[in-house]
């Protein structure tokens, strides 16, 4: 259904034909389907499920319902990288600017930014034993990067600012098959690591001291969870921009619906649910039959936030 809706309306029969490679009457339709709408749908699935799962792991690890991929500063790190490339380009001289401001430049910068922030958080987390402290430190890194971004935007030109803001809107549709393959391979590693972490995530529901008394290697499993989260959230942010809300809200919605805390059920449920919600948001963002496409970032919040509020009001309490 996601594939069938877009700014250009294409008959269903031709969509199916173009998917299975049968000849259709309009070649540009085939192009739209195969190289635009199909990768976009895949991206939506990866983004929704990936962010949802990283949010789920963060909430369990930090024993905090407010945790999400944003709290570790991963997203802020990516933003900083992108801001440096787009707005800082003028500082580095015009010769390099052209090289930097390509799509790959942004992706690399975002990955590098989130990776560096992750590295800093990891180094700190080996020193600090308290998980709550790591959470606060992640938030502080977020504040620092936000401040640097503000300073940069103050000095940058209107065009650079606009380019940065466009990245900040988030986008699912800018990925080629090649980029999608890279996103998918890193995403797979992250998902694999989260599946390995299911048991330790369940043990962590008791609290860290109990988990330790159950023979869990706390440091190792914490590292595993943090790396998995960063891989998922970091690369997704790099390719699709900072997508708000999904990482925080999907795990809550899933918990409320399935009424369980068992990660063996939650992980696949969040995966499905994240993917579905993201696809729906994407459909809405397309404003079917119209020529406009809204920023996906706005849609995820506009659609998602009321749903969470409604769920919470109906259940009268946050289950965690």
């Amino acid at each position, binding site marked *: 259904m996601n594939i069938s809706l877009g700014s250009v309306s294409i008959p269903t029969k031709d969509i199916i034909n173009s998917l299975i490679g049968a000849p259709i009457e309009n070649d540009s339709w085939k192009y739209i389907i195969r190289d635009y709408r199909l990768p976009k749908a895949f991206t939506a699935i990866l983004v929704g499920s990936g962010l949802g799962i990283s949010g789920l792991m963060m909430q369990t690890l930090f024993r905090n319902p407010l945790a999400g991929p944003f709290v570790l500063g991963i997203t802020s790190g990516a933003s900083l990288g992108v801001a440096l490339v787009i707005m800082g380009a003028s500082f580095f001289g015009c010769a390099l600017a052209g090289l930097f401001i390509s799509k790959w430049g942004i992706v690399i910068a975002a990955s590098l930014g989130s990776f560096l922030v992750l590295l800093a958080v990891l180094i700190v987390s080996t020193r600090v034993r308290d998980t709550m402290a790591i959470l606060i430190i992640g938030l502080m890194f977020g504040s620092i990067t936000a401040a640097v971004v503000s300073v940069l935007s103050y000095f940058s030109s209107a065009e650079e600012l606009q380019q940065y803001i466009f990245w900040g809107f988030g986008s699912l549709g800018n990925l080629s098959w090649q980029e999608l393959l890279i996103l998918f391979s890193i995403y797979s590693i992250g998902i694999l690591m989260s599946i*390995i972490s299911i048991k330790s995530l369940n043990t962590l*529901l008791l609290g860290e001291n*109990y988990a330790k*008394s*159950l*023979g*869990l*290697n706390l440091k190792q499993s914490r590292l595993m969870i943090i790396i998995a989260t960063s891989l998922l959230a970091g690369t997704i942010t790099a390719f699709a921009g900072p997508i708000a809300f999904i990482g925080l809200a999907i795990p809550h919605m899933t918990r409320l619906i399935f009424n*369980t*805390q068992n990660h063996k059920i939650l992980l696949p449920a969040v995966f499905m649910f994240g993917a579905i919600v993201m696809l729906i948001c994407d459909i809405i963002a397309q404003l079917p039959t119209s020529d406009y496409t809204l920023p996906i970032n706005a849609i995820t919040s506009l659609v998602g936030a009321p749903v969470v509020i409604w769920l919470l009001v109906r259940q009268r309490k946050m289950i965690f």
Partner: protein
Amino acid sequence: MNAQNQHIVLKTEDLSIGYTSKKSKIVVASNINIELQKGELVGLIGANGIGKSTLLRTLTNVQPKLNGSMTINSKSLENYSNLDLAKTLSLVLTESLASKNLTVFELVALGRQPYTNWVGNLSEDDITKVDKALNHTNLSDLKQKKCFELSDGQLQKVMIARALAQDTDIIILDEPTTHLDMYHKAYVLKLLQKLAKETNITILFSSHEIDLAIQLCDKLIVMTDNNVLIDTPKNHIEQGNFKALFPEDLIIFDDNTGAFRVKK
């Protein structure tokens, strides 16, 4: 307990406990010589800040000892891997659960984690052991209840059942009776006594319920500023060890009733 059943589960020799910082060592207590036999219920009593928690933390390998030796089943505590220790020693802590959105069964089943496979699937044997732990603690009816629906007393029972399901030789409980009313204090300690007898597990708990502990425990560890003594409650009373527990200006120990009373 008859002679052939005698088996030392936990033993400390000249153990000293405390904290080390870069500059100095702070010794909380030293010369601790404790032997716990199989199937014994042992209470640990002492004033606030005397080092009960430090002792328990050291015995459970949460915090390193300063000196001396600790052995569990004749094997030095340092030689246990995390997982081996988890199969030998289980805990009930004072900290609250990270998540209360678990059913009683799920929570107790988490006690089986050291035995389950990489994804944590319960085998038939695991389920039998969990059910047994639930039966021992009279929780079978609450099995499908969520933990946030339980009272403090029920939750404490669930935590004890979880420790039981871990199938260990020793269970150590840190102040299991705090936040409970008088009835449930007695109930929990009585339950521990029953478990020690029926399952032959050694149970060590710290508590401020001295009069209850005197009545129910096989042995008591009395911690004072000067020493750490382990003996039967009867011998403690005869030797007047309880008198040294607190300053004598406010409450005194009455040998006849086996309880403290306020000075009038």
